[in-house]
């Protein structure tokens, strides 16, 4: 595109500035993880690695991390499936109640988390108990999925609305069967929006605390819950800075890989 050099530079500088702002709090987190003060007051009173060694010796955080990853993956898979289906139904077909679906899907994040949480808790108690399914990972996954669906749904829907159905029609007219059309036409079109949706859904699930409180029961604990607990536990709060710093490093690779995946071979294939 023919943008003047000045415009490009201005855009670049602006983006750089935004990135900087995005990372300043994380820098504060990192600096504070070496701050000996017990409640990360500023400026740091010295340099200490005691929070790092405490975090490393901490078993609770590792268990919580694994639980959170499992819950996030589970919720994201459900959200991908249901969110895509709902988006297709709304974008490609007309049927009674179509308007209601958007609302239905958005409701769980529109409601304050505590309302969703209590509603889910009573739903699970009423409908799962008879089947002997107690509160645990499964209920957390289902709980998270309810508000993750909207992320996938919105991303895919925005894409579908923009692309239109003509390509799929053409594919069908040229003799492709359903599967082929999906594999070669539809999927590449929506792939990057799926990845974007999945990443946001996972992030949302990975960070959720209020709904989790009411759907997790006593036996499991997710990472945000662990972090919350530590803010309320004496002499432990700065450990969460260490954990946050580690999380960023731990997720850098998967996030980058997922980006490669979304471009893939179809990078040049713009419509």
């Amino acid at each position, binding site marked *: 595109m023919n943008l003047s050099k000045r415009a490009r530079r201005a855009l670049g500088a602006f983006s750089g500035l935004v990135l900087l702002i995005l990372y300043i*709090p994380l820098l504060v987190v990192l600096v504070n993880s070496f701050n000996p003060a017990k409640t990360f007051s500023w400026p740091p009173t010295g340099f200490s690695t005691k929070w790092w060694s405490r975090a490393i010796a901490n078993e609770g955080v590792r268990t919580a991390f694994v639980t959170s990853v499992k819950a996030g993956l589970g919720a994201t898979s459900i959200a991908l499936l249901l969110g895509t289906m709902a988006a297709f139904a709304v974008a490609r077909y007309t049927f009674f109640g179509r308007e209601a679906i958007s609302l239905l899907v958005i409701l769980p994040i529109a409601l304050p988390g505590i309302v969703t949480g*209590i*509603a889910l808790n009573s739903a699970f108690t009423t409908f799962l108990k008879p089947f002997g399914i107690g509160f645990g990972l499964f209920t957390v996954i289902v709980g998270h999925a309810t508000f993750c669906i909207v992320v996938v749904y919105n991303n895919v829907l925005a894409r579908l*609305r923009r692309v239109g159905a003509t390509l799929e029609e053409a594919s069908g007219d040229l003799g492709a069967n359903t599967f082929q059309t999906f594999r070669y036409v539809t999927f590449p079109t929506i792939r990057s929006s799926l990845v974007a949706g999945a990443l946001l859904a996972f992030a949302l699930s990975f960070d959720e605390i209020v709904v989790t409180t009411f759907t997790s029961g006593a036996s499991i604990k997710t990472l945000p819950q662990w972090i919350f607990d530590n*803010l309320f536990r004496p002499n432990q709060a700065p450990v969460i800075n260490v954990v946050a710093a580690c999380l960023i490093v731990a997720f850098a690779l998967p996030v980058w890989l997922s980006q490669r995946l979304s471009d893939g071979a179809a990078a040049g294939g713009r419509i």
Partner: protein
Amino acid sequence: MLWLVVAYLGSLIVMFVAAFWSTNDFTGALVRKFTTNNFHTLITESVYRTIAVRSIVVASIVTIVDAVVAIPIAFFMAKILSPRWRRIMVALVLLPLWASYLVKAYAWRTIFSEGGVLAWVASPFNIHTPGYGLGATTAVLAYLWLPYMILPVFAGLERLPDSLLDASSDLGANAWRTFRTIVLPITYPAFIAGSIFTFSLSMGDYIIVKIVGGKSQLFANVVYDNIGTAGNLPFAAAAAMVPVVTIIAYLLMVRRSGALDNL
């Protein structure tokens, strides 16, 4: 799975029916008798109106700030950067999402505190930091939900054909005009998608305002404060209607503008 959806909806319906109930003032047990008292209180007590308006204003500002920041950056990522840098940039935008919401909120608390990071940076220029309050709350919410705006907008722009932009400039449009007449309309549905997140996440949040809001409160706090207390589920359910109705109104507005169907 469908069964669970039904169950979930069922319990939501129960909660909203509960909005028309009251509690026994002695035992705190639910009294299942129709009353509009809760709504009456919500509407007549000016404090709830004030808080509701405040929350809507905060959520709107958060959405606008996020959009203003997200559209240029998403455009830069989608149309100017090479694919390789684009991937790195997307990863960089996404990464802060993993640093736990609470940890980031507390980092912002350090930034806004007296003698904190902002005061440090600003003091040589003789600027006073705003400290904790609604301004800080809005800033932190905008910060937290920014990736939820950038990504949909980016995904929308990514598929915008370069040829369209070229055609526009070939026909003599300058960059600003191209942006206004081509890029913005095409970004619109993506912006709507993003705004639904930023707006509703801001409406539903009660923790940020507790951490950096000073003595301020938002509507989600009202719901939260009432729900656990002795059987005040009815009032909380009635209060929870406010964000829901707001968001429904927003969706209807979007639909009326016809933006979603014209594409």
